[in-house]
């Protein structure tokens, strides 16, 4: 009898999770960040319900500071999947002109953390899919696949429901919601390989290309549009770079690379000696427990 490969088992498990949510939640939504993990999650959702389109919308909690190429792919994927795309901007952040150059961590707090809470409340979603993986970060390693949030979106790591076999308890009181992580058990390598095998469209920024960059605090930052305030004497230099993770362009460090194909990207990823999230400023906040604290406050 056929023994399934690890990717086949992971795929089946993720599809099972996505279907359970649709069967048991009242109003699910998929958080779509346009990165590679979102790309895999969206692809799994399409597989789960084929030939129907996934019976929930995509939600992009936008900061207005994403890379241009991300916006392009986002719109294309929504069309391809036949799903509704909801884009949410925190009106307060918009009004105050919150940006990553002047406002530091407030940028993430207001656009992303607050924006997400507002969007979920506005539409009344009671279950939200997210593309987080347990191998990303220590506090994620212990988070459940179905992660409960209070009506104020708080997470209590000491009060998580046990998850046995593949039985998920999706019951909740009015006002409470669930974050569901269908690709919890995937590693970075699994994600890349799955994208490769299934030919899933991803943002071209993951591949090396000559791009205008400046070096700041040891990080290579791409000058993606003319809102980038260049310091006196600072001049964008064309470098062959790519990105390991994608976020707001001023906060996302590029790595110098010549990897132009997926196998080359995977090769580079496997040979590298630093972990994936290192390029992100967010994890360095608040010491070792940075992400755990952020999650308790409602960060995804």
């Amino acid at each position, binding site marked *: 009898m056929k023994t*399934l490969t690890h990717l086949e088992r992971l795929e089946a498990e993720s599809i099972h999770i996505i279907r359970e949510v649709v069967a048991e939640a009242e109003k699910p939504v998929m958080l779509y960040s346009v990165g590679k993990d979102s790309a895999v999650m969206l692809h799994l959702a399409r597989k789960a319900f084929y030939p129907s389109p996934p019976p929930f919308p995509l939600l992009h909690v936008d900061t207005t500071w994403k890379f241009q190429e991300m916006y392009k792919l986002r719109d294309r994927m929504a069309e391809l999947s036949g799903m509704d795309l909801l884009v949410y901007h925190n009106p307060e952040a918009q009004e105050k002109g919150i940006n990553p150059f002047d406002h530091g961590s407030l940028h993430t707090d207001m656009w992303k953390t607050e924006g997400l809470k507002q969007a979920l409340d506005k539409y009344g979603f009671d279950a939200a899919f997210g593309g987080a993986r347990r191998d990303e970060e220590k506090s994620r390693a212990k988070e459940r696949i179905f992660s409960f949030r209070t009506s104020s979106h708080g997470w209590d790591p000491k009060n998580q429901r046990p998850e046995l076999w*593949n*039985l998920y308890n999706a019951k909740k009181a009015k006002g409470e919601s669930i974050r569901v992580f269908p690709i919890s058990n995937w590693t970075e390598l699994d994600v890349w390989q799955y994208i490769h095998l299934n030919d899933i469209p991803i943002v071209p920024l993951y591949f090396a290309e000559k791009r205008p960059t400046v070096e700041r605090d040891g990080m290579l930052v791409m000058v993606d549009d003319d809102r980038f305030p260049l310091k006196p004497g600072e001049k964008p230099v064309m470098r062959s770079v790519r990105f390991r993770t994608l976020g707001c362009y001023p906060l996302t460090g590029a790595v110098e690379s010549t990897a132009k194909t997926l196998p080359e990207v995977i*090769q580079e990823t496997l040979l590298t000696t630093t*972990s994936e999230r290192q390029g992100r400023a967010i994890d360095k906040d608040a010491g070792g427990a940075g992400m755990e604290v952020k999650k308790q406050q409602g960060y995804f």
Partner: protein
Amino acid sequence: MTDQTITKDKNEPVYVVDDLIAKDIDAYLDQHEHKTMLRFITCGSVDDGKSTLIGRLLYDSKMIFEDQLDALTSDSKKVGTQGQEIDFALLVDGLAAEREQGITIDVAYRFFNTEKRKFIVADCPGHEQYTRNMVTGASAADLAVILIDARKGVLVQTRRHSYLCHLIGIKNIVLAVNKMDLVDYSQDVFDKIVADYTEFAEGIGIESFTAMPISGFKGDNITTLSENTPWYKGPTLVEHLETVEVISSVDADKPFRMPVQWVNRPNLDFRGFSGLIATGSVKPGDAIRVLPSGKTSKVSRVVTFDGDLDEAVAGQSVTVCFEDEIDCSRGSVISVADNPPQTADQFESTIVWMADDALVPGRAYWLKLGTQTVSATIHAPKYTVNVNTMEHMAAKTLELNEIGVAEIATDKQIVFEPYAENRALGGFILIDRMTNATVAAGMLHFSLRRSQNVHWQALDIGRKQHADLKNQRPAVLWFTGLSGSGKSTIANLVEKKLYRMNRHTFLLDGDNVRHGLNKDLGFTEADRIENIRRVGEVSKLLADSGLIVITAFISPFQADREMVRSMLPEGEFFEVFIDTPLKVAEARDVKGLYKKARAGELKNFTGIDSPYEAPRDPEIRIDTTKMSPDEAAELIVNTLLGDA
């Protein structure tokens, strides 16, 4: 910086894959694509070197990156317990609270690869108070690594971990005798431990296990056979993990079963049933049977996004279409036609209690098994098992982390198989109906004969005929509220009004019932639940005879009122909440009970030292501070008859 500590052991990993990655990435990817997956659990306490072993596996398979290693090195110096050496435990102890306390509280999942397999490790705490976490981690595991400190031998916790793994049905057990470096790699020590363990394992029914001498700290027999143990002829830990058989391939050889998650119906031309295949395989043309209805058909297509399949096997998520339009929905189980699973509503099962609040026998809980969710009541346990000695002990309930055997009754027939034969159709969780928490995990043993043999007596004069004769629709007006809230007064008025309108009624009053039917019951939580259950059953019989039943009981627990509601046909149960604030009821104190309760003469008095759970969504709510008893009765009668 760290090299002197990390590389001082001479064992180099055997599966250095970096060469292939650099030389031929396509070949590497091809290899990785075809890897199988093994999920395993590590059992043991921090003292046994469990975290160190996992850290070692991650490190040896290059799953620790330089930046993580930097953080680890600085953390080791700050809070580590290994002096200047790297404390691998810090790498895997995730939550901040755990780090401060130096213990692993929760289940954490770790990932690593070798050339042959991908591994998911459930890292579980070992202390007795974390039995539930271990059971959780074990539930998805193909294999368990049970760690023993070579200096200490087989301990109480070794027995506990082994029992739990065996209970959850893990067939592959590795006895890893760790810290061999601290006993001079002595074969005698190892052999003695293996002999002790063999005796114990046979006693609890573990058929086989694989023992190996290791040192997680030094790396002996982890990835390469150690020169320090020339007398050991078995495989290394990693070699064993790479070759042991995984559950999904065992499940594929069993009869076909697929619990239906979701009905896929994009348009009138397509109707498919989506699910994860639990056991067996399916292909177009196969004769199938849908449970519990028992209807049969043939498979017309096995649909996936990547195209129709010629065959799908256990572990795959697919969508199955039939040749005929037969009833099938979420909760149904699709099975091979000639060998279907059973259906039943009463079972014996093992239950692991996972909540701070103890099991309340007789109370209704949600039971989720596969994709079926039903209401279930648990009897008082036949016995509990002492997880340290395996002794059976008498018990009235199950407390947090206790394991017991008890009978379960569900409110309707469910499709099941004994857990030992099929995890997907025999494993279940219990959910508290008030808090929605997952309070227990359970494993079905078998169905009880009585549920198979007791058939409902088919009656010629049924409830419809009874009701028609009385020219009314039966109903149960269930009054609930604090003692002294005015339930009996208003219930009396309601009955009088209905009587005058030629309605056939019957009033069941709390005090009266306790003088007869329920005079054997006291006021403990369990007795109060039984009290309500009996009243519920009597109400149901009276309603079956066509009567309008009026009950007046405090009935403080939402779950119990819901249990009665679920006994009756939709629309016949009216929850009437007599909403009188405690202050007001206590001030009235018609029977002088509050005074006694306050003086400590009456125990378990609702509102004083026993909780009252107010209805969340009652059919009728009476605010007695704003309404006279007569007005209240009028409102209740109008609602009942207006609805009827």
